[in-house]
């Protein structure tokens, strides 16, 4: 991580820490906009910080660390699409004030040549606050922005156990798209789709790594404080060893994420980048879930109360596991090694 990025990251960490864990979206989203966090991956030539995907992931990790409720990830996907398409108008709009959301799982929809959108996009964060949604057709041959305030779109809030995300199902009943908002078609759309999937997977990996780190820190802190049988729990070797295993697992996920980002470099739309993203996501989210599960167990009864933060980590970790393309990642990794089954 270069010095500029690490400074930016540290200040984001401070700002988010000041807001507290799982601070609401209406407090953290304006911060993200005001402090320019959406510009981190935008090339310098286009007025951004030029920190690329690795820079973006440093921020995604901070979102994970603080269980941030702001819809930073979908907004960054929209920004990634605008960068790819060279749409400086949208880069500016997204960086300054606008919010465009995007589904965090692959949508099942068609976009005709004429731009008619039909089908379903699930797991779309904060869709009620967005002006547009970024959609890719299931066939991968079109990526477009679609305005949300129009007829034929049914948005339904789906309450999740994870309260730090607000997901929507969007149903499109032959909605007329705006041709000027088509960002890519044909092969270019395939490349952009790959780029978006890569960003999404790395972002989820970063979210997981950040969340897991905080979860373990809080757990260790709790064990140092909490006494049972006249001793701090942190003195019990069985618990120490479990924490050590979790630490090693988080460190491995962090290392894999960092290493994979170095390997990707600027080739963010390559097949290799997509494969690396899948592996990093798969490894990181299972580490996160394991840490969050142990966090709850090691906190004992207090972790079972809604007042304590344990469950927020657990619920976010469990949702992270199901975002992206969920469990099929492992099979995809095997495909890379063995060829398709």
């Amino acid at each position, binding site marked *: 991580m270069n010095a500029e990025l690490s400074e930016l990251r540290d200040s984001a960490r401070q700002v988010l820490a000041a807001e507290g864990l799982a601070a609401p979206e209406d407090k953290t989203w304006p911060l993200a906009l005001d402090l320019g966090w959406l510009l981190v991956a935008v090339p310098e030539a286009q007025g951004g910080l030029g920190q690329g995907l690795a820079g973006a992931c440093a921020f995604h990790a901070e979102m994970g660390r603080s269980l941030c409720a702001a819809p930073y990830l979908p907004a960054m996907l929209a920004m990634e699409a605008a960068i790819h398409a060279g749409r400086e108008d949208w880069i500016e709009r997204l960086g300054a004030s606008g919010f465009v959301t995007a589904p965090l*799982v692959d949508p099942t929809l068609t976009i005709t040549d004429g731009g008619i959108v039909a089908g379903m996009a*699930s*797991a779309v964060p904060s869709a009620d606050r967005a002006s547009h949604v970024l959609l890719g057709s299931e066939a991968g041959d079109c990526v477009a922005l679609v305005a949300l305030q129009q007829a034929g779109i049914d948005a339904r809030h*789906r*309450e*999740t*156990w*994870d309260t730090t995300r607000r997901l929507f199902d969007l149903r499109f009943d032959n909605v007329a798209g705006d041709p000027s908002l088509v960002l890519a078609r044909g092969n270019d759309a395939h490349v952009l789709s790959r780029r978006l999937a890569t960003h999404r997977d790395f972002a989820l990996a970063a979210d997981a790594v950040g969340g897991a780190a905080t979860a373990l820190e809080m757990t260790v802190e709790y064990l140092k404080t909490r*006494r*049972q*049988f*006249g*001793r*701090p729990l942190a*003195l*019990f070797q*069985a*618990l120490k060893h479990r924490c050590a295993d979790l630490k090693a697992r988080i460190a491995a996920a962090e290392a894999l994420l960092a290493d994979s980002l170095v390997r990707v470099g600027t080739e963010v739309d390559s097949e290799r980048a997509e494969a690396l993203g899948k592996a990093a996501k798969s490894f990181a989210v299972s580490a996160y879930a394991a840490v969050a599960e142990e966090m*709850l*167990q090691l906190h*004992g*009864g207090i*972790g*079972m*109360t*809604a*007042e304590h933060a*344990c*469950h927020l980590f*657990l*619920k976010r970790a*469990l*949702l992270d*596991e*199901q*975002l992206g393309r*969920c*469990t099929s990642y492992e099979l995809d990794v095997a495909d890379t090694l063995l060829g398709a089954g």
Partner: protein
Amino acid sequence: MSQAPEALRTEVRAWLQNNIPRDWRAAMTGTDQDAFVRAQREWFGKLVKAGYATPHWPEGWPGGGRSLAEQKIIYEEVARADAPRLILFFVALYHAACTLIEWGTDEQKRAHLPGILDGKLWCQGFSEPNAGSDLAAVRTRAELRGDRYVINGQKIWSTLAQHADYCLLLVRTDTAGPPQAGLTYLLLDMRSKGVSVRPIAQITGDDEFSEIFLDDVEVPVSDRVGGEGQGWAVAQSTLASERGLTLVELSHRMRYALNRITGLMRARGVAGDAALRRDLGRLAPKVDAACALADQYLLKRIENTEAPGDASIVKLHYARTLRDFTALGLRIAGLQGQYREPFIRGGGMETGNWPFDFMNSYNWTIAGGSDEIQRNIIAERMLGMPREPKDWRL
């Protein structure tokens, strides 16, 4: 009250078939606690009348005098029929009744046992915020003033205490000497002045546990169970009162609930997924083993051959298996399982609301002696590995 086992089984099975509230799961889905309490009371009334609520009570009481083997049959059938669990009355029927039967004065028995059959509710006041698995660390203070104890302190994890009429209260009457020796056991009327109850919002959205705050609460000496300083021994009886039976019921319920996993796999279109099939094929024998352990443990209790640690093994294995069970369901459920749906109040451990069930399973790995405590017991009492020295502190 003795009966041929198969005859009892047939009788209970038939009775359950005719008496289980129709569609009780649907009725308890997304309901509030008051409706739940009403439904439990109704079900309790039926069971008491049929004699199936109190098979463990002594001969002479309605339904009482059943052997452990007969009690087991009743529980197996309740599990098989997927009848509602009687959780609202559990403390009254087991913890309170058994403690009173073993330790209570005649007067105390007369005062309370008939009330239990009439539907009086009890809760347990053992755990405290700083004494999770370690009862010897109980700090709630009781001072004897004349013929009353005056009590100050706080209890936690008390199941459904917000509805209770009475509480089995463990308090500290002496701070000198070994910590166990300073405990005393009281029967607390929950309407007493200075008692306040706060339900705990759980991560599952349920609120079946409460905190109890005790502020200069007075309890007459006549409501003490056992002598002053005997609280530890009395509490052990309370905790032993249902040893084995609950896990027979729950493990058998888990076995029947395997069809919730297979049903989910079919519904999600992944019944052919070899990896999930392998997971299921690993889980099912583990569930069967949980049933076998619970059954054999009860047999040991019947034959009086229980050894130290046996109970820990049953609980640890059940708890880990329940975690695996609910985790598998959760993962199969996929993104759909992440959407919050109303839970089934009193629906047991495998309701098919997978995130709820998964989180709820922590009740078994944490409460009633956490997995970690069970491992200590197994290592020390069964395997004879040494305990850490008492004076080992930082």
